[in-house]
């Protein structure tokens, strides 16, 4: 099938961009450039979501992560005195422990997931059309209680953010 081959190419390109930009985020010396690469990484993840027919997640990814969180990070960098142009150290004395734990965890999860052959159980899977409508219905009907609690959660974070970010006057 040609369409799936095209999707395959797009997937590999996006994955390559994600991996390279994610590596740049953790390895560049200028933290401002790291933030720009983070935006690129998050945007490519949105592309992966589109490939998986998860349009809502793609929209959320662009709107929240690319649109708001990344901007907030850049603001935070610009606010910090003299951090934006400075070169920072990328590693500390814990780097070997960190690499060890991450590699161990990655290997363990890959091996465990591969052993279960979990993708063999359901072969007749077809993505749902209009997934956002169904999502909206679930959110408004079945999961409306957690949905309302989310607004309490957002309120608590708003108040907490104001308390912490405000300059103290005595």
């Amino acid at each position: 099938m040609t369409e799936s081959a095209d999707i395959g190419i797009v997937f590999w390109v996006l994955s390559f961009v994600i991996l390279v930009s994610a590596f740049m985020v953790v390895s560049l010396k200028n933290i401002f450039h790291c933030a720009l690469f983070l935006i690129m990484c998050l945007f490519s993840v949105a592309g992966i979501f589109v490939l998986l027919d998860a349009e809502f997640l793609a929209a959320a990814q662009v709107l929240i992560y690319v649109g708001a969180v990344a901007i907030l990070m850049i603001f935070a960098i610009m606010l910090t005195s003299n951090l934006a142009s400075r070169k920072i150290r990328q590693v500390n004395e814990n780097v070997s422990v960190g690499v060890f734990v991450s590699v161990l965890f990655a290997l363990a999860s890959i091996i465990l997931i591969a052993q279960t052959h979990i993708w063999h159980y359901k072969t007749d899977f077809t993505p749902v059309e209009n997934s956002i409508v169904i999502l909206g219905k679930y959110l408004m009907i079945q999961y409306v209680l957690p949905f309302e609690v989310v607004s309490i959660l957002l309120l608590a974070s708003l108040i907490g953010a104001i308390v912490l970010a405000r300059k103290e006057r005595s």
Partner: protein
Amino acid sequence: MSEYVAVLMFILAGAGIVLVTFFMARMLRPHNPYPQKDINYECAELPVGSSWIQFNNRFYIFALIFVIFDVEVIFLFPWAVAFGQLGLFALVEMVVFILILLFGLFYAWKKGVLKWV
């Protein structure tokens, strides 16, 4: 899925136009840099200090409040799409959701965070 091919094309075309313009300019222009030409505003003010300055703290609180309401918008999105198939209760649920968050705005306003002094 196929409608996203257009989006992809658009992104590629947009990036391509920029790159081609840069490339053409590089080919056509003479290469003759000198200090006066290298400053940011070639034909007007001299820049003072570095452009890497510390921003005002207030931007940050605005950005934080913006993120919170951005997350709210992402919840409005599926609600709005599905609204036609839902009843009055969906409206009530969303009004409750927004009212709770509006309290946060009221709080921020009363606290004087939104003022630029």
